[in-house]
């Protein structure tokens, strides 16, 4: 089983549009959307949710009012300032600030604190016209997106294994932090979607450090390639320096936005020249990861 992860740094470079476009062309694949903060691949692949699983990223503390004597020990111990005294003298935990370390729970002399797993997201197994899609949604304001990303990839592997699929095509998490590390460790290859602009190039350099650090073969795709010839040349220079292949260019094309509005991947009914570009791209990736 092989896994291609599409990432882009901060996003906005067309990562999800590219993943969606490739999904239509990819045979024998299970798809995964690791952008659990803002999962957009389902907008293109129109999944029908088959199964919903609750996700728990950790525990949280809660003070049982009746048992608390108001000694204040928990407040003084909590390093995340999650516990405070209300006007009526009762102590309370702010669930958004609690990092679930359990210290207050262990320390409370009255055993007045509960420390239980909380559900902070949902994981979905869905059917699309091209194969199963595993996606998820983290509830607003919750942390642990890294753990949820790991759960999505785990589920994608299980599903691919059970269905005898040979590929997982993953829309990676944005950024260069914990969620994206969770979305690319152990992948067979990473496709970095970038665009010729100072911000995207800055992100690209950071991502390349990551892929190097984890020794994952990386490939670069330049989207909106015609926006700035000078910046495009800079991407090529970086690629040469880092010995990473640039697989090709995609021109800026209104077809991407039009397909998005229709809720379809661009290779389904977008401009024919884009279809040819993605066909070619798929061949190059298959050769690279063979």
């Amino acid at each position, binding site marked *: 089983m092989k896994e291609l992860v599409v990432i882009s*740094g*901060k*996003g*906005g*470079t067309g990562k*999800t549009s590219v993943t969606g476009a490739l999904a239509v062309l990819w045979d024998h694949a299970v798809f995964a959307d690791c*952008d659990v*903060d*803002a*999962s*957009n691949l389902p*907008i293109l692949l129109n999944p029908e949710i088959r199964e919903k699983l609750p996700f728990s990223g*950790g*525990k949280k503390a809660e003070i049982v009012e009746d048992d608390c004597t108001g000694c204040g020990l928990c407040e003084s*111990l909590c*390093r*995340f300032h999650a516990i405070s005294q209300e006007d009526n003298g009762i102590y309370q935990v702010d669930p*958004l600030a609690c*990092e*679930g*370390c*359990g*210290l207050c729970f*262990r*320390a409370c002399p009255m055993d007045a604190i509960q420390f239980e797993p909380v559900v902070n997201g949902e994981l979905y197994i869905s059917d699309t016209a091209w194969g199963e899609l595993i996606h998820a949604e*983290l509830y*607003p*304001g*919750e*942390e642990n*997106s*890294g753990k949820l990303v790991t759960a999505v990839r785990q589920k994608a592997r299980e599903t691919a294994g059970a269905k005898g699929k040979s590929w997982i095509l993953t829309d990676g998490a*944005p*950024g*260069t*932090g*914990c969620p994206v*590390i969770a979305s690319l460790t152990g992948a067979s290859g990473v496709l970095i979607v970038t*665009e*010729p*602009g*100072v*911000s995207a190039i*800055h*992100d690209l350099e*950071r991502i390349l*450090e*990551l892929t190097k*650090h984890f020794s994952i073969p990386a490939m670069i795709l330049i989207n*909106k390639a015609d*926006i*700035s010839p*000078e*910046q495009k040349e800079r991407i090529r220079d970086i690629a040469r320096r880092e010995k990473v292949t640039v697989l090709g260019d995609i021109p*800026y094309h*209104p077809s991407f*936005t039009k397909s*998005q*509005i229709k*809720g379809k991947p661009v290779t389904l009914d977008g401009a024919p020249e884009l279809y040819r570009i993605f066909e070619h791209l798929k061949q190059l990736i298959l050769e690279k990861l063979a």
Partner: protein
Amino acid sequence: MNLAIVSGKGGTGKTTVAVNLAAYMSRERDIRLLDADAEEPNAVLFFQADMSRDMAVSVMVPEILHEKCTRCRKCVEMCEYNALMMTRKGVLLSPDLCHSCGACMYVCPEKAILEKFRETGRIREYHCKAYPRLQVIEGDLHRGESRVTPVIDDVLSYAGPCTIIDAPPGTSCPVVETVKHADRVLVVTESTPFGLHDLKGVAAMLRLIRKPFQVVINRHGQGDDGVENWCKEEGIPVVLKIPFREDYARVIAGGGLLIEHFPRFREDMACLAKDLCGKGL
């Protein structure tokens, strides 16, 4: 005034709005632009800026005094993040998993745990030649580090009387941390189905923490009316629509400021500044 500029995700033009608004407003007053997008700070790329300070961000991690440790395992069992492991050589720490909660130190019966500093990022301060009244402060998380919140907290401690914050993307805890203390929140989005979906996510988060917000639509005219219609239904004010223009895209790509090239955009920033100042700047 403390203005946070957020977006459901990156690439919507959040930084474009932040840098242009900060530069524009700094012509009349001292402005601090805080780049809290510490995983990928990009704001300073839009200025010719000189770094004036460069400081470490550190967190506390436990240090095990092996000669005192009796291997009772209490600390290992206590750690909710699996940052401690009992090995043949004694208790071993995986520093990147540690949340600096101090629980292990608290439970150790032998007082065999101390704490030491570990650097996880940098805070840099910049001054811009062309905008003498603008100060840019960026947080930069070291590569491979996962805990961004301490860096963001440090950046936010630089808030001054008039502050514009380029928030991290997403809707999870780093963003909550950033907008919690803001007086005003602007959400930058795009008029596409992706933009609408991300806007809904960020709106849910902002409502959860009870922060009123306004919307800026970027690349307007390229997509559909979904975002505008939704804002109308929900009674969310749209304070600015930035048209999609290829000449804008080109200037942004080259790291230029739109206010320096396009009078129309300068006027947009003037309107936005007036709107913000009129209400308590």
